[in-house]
């Protein structure tokens, strides 16, 4: 089992979820109103009211094959708009 953490601007949430759905994930979890800093930009809470300032953190638990389907779909979006994706090992309780 794999764990995938995606962090990117809330504005791309719909697009990313479409990717996940098209990769047939068994499920996903979304945490909104997340802030942070990447190599270039600071995303801060105080700009959230403009529809500008918040990231979403999306968490997916899935098997290795699904993960392989997700990669090519979400990477272009993250490259275009910014955002990060990391995987780690996980197992069902």
């Amino acid at each position, binding site marked *: 089992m794999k764990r995938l953490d995606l962090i990117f601007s809330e504005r791309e949430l719909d697009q990313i979820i479409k990717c996940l759905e098209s990769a047939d994930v068994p499920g996903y979890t979304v945490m909104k109103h997340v802030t942070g800093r990447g190599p270039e930009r600071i995303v801060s809470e*105080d700009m959230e*009211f*403009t*529809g500008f300032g*918040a990231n979403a953190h999306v968490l997916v638990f899935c098997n290795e094959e699904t993960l392989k389907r997700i990669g090519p779909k979400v990477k272009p979006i993250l490259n*275009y708009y*910014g955002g990060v994706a990391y995987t780690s090992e996980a197992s069902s309780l």
Partner: protein
Amino acid sequence: MNTSLILENVLSPPILFFFLGALAVLLKSDLEIPAPLPKLFSLYLLLAIGFKGGLELQNSNLSGPLVPTILAAIFMSLLIPIICFFILRLKLNVFNSAAIAAAYGSISAVTFITAESFLSNQNIPFDGFMVAALAMMESPAIIVGLLLVKVAGPKERPKERQMKWLEILHESLLNSSVYLLLGSLLIGFLTAAFNPSGVTKMQPFTGSLFYGVECFFLLDMGIVALQRLPALKKAGSFLIAFAVFMPVFNALIGIFVAKALNLGPGNALLFVVLCASASYLAVPTAMRMTVPEAKASFYISTTLGLTFPFNIVIGIPIYMGLVNHFIPITN
């Protein structure tokens, strides 16, 4: 005279609360207005501005200087970004120039309502239909900004970044602040036309409460604006100068257009303020989506960190002075 106008403006609750917020950041107080409360205030203000504007539009019978004023406003929101673009290109690349230009072509609703408060403090009459002009100035500026990228930008832009017309229209007409403002305007209009008792029942919410919420929101804007200043310093002195002089320049153009339109001093000030103000809501979010190559910190720190405070604190009284000077009261 201008100094006394500035003083009167500064000593009004909205501006004082703006300072209180800014000072909190300076003094490192932990005062904050947590999300999504600023969103609540901004949704409320857009809804109330739109609704009230719609009422007045109805009451004005769509007559008088309304139509020429709105056409002139649209014209300004097409012209200003182009002027800005050429000035900005002196130092910045196409993407940043276009994004900032679009922001200055558009408007700031909070600057506008601060100007309205200023006028009503001075007992200078103005027409509610100016809100319609405000509502009409958001989209064109966005479209011009995107066209500038299309025309002046590198031809080898990757395929996924080639904008489609539909997307451009969608971003410019349906982003939440434009949509809510226009929608509320329409609702205000329809209510005034067909359901006068609805107007009375809305009044305590959209009318009486307005000034207080404005103060609360400006408290937050003081915090937010001051937090943008460090980014502005990084952006360099060219942009700093731009953020102060461009509004004044745009205001001057606005004054001559207002004069040509034969507007009274109240309406003229509002028209000028629309020209001078820059958007930090609709335009930045639209640019973020369609021109991600532009540095967000550039267009936000200039509009929000400097132009906005400049306009509400000393810009408005200065523009009033200019209006009084150039537009004789006999108008």
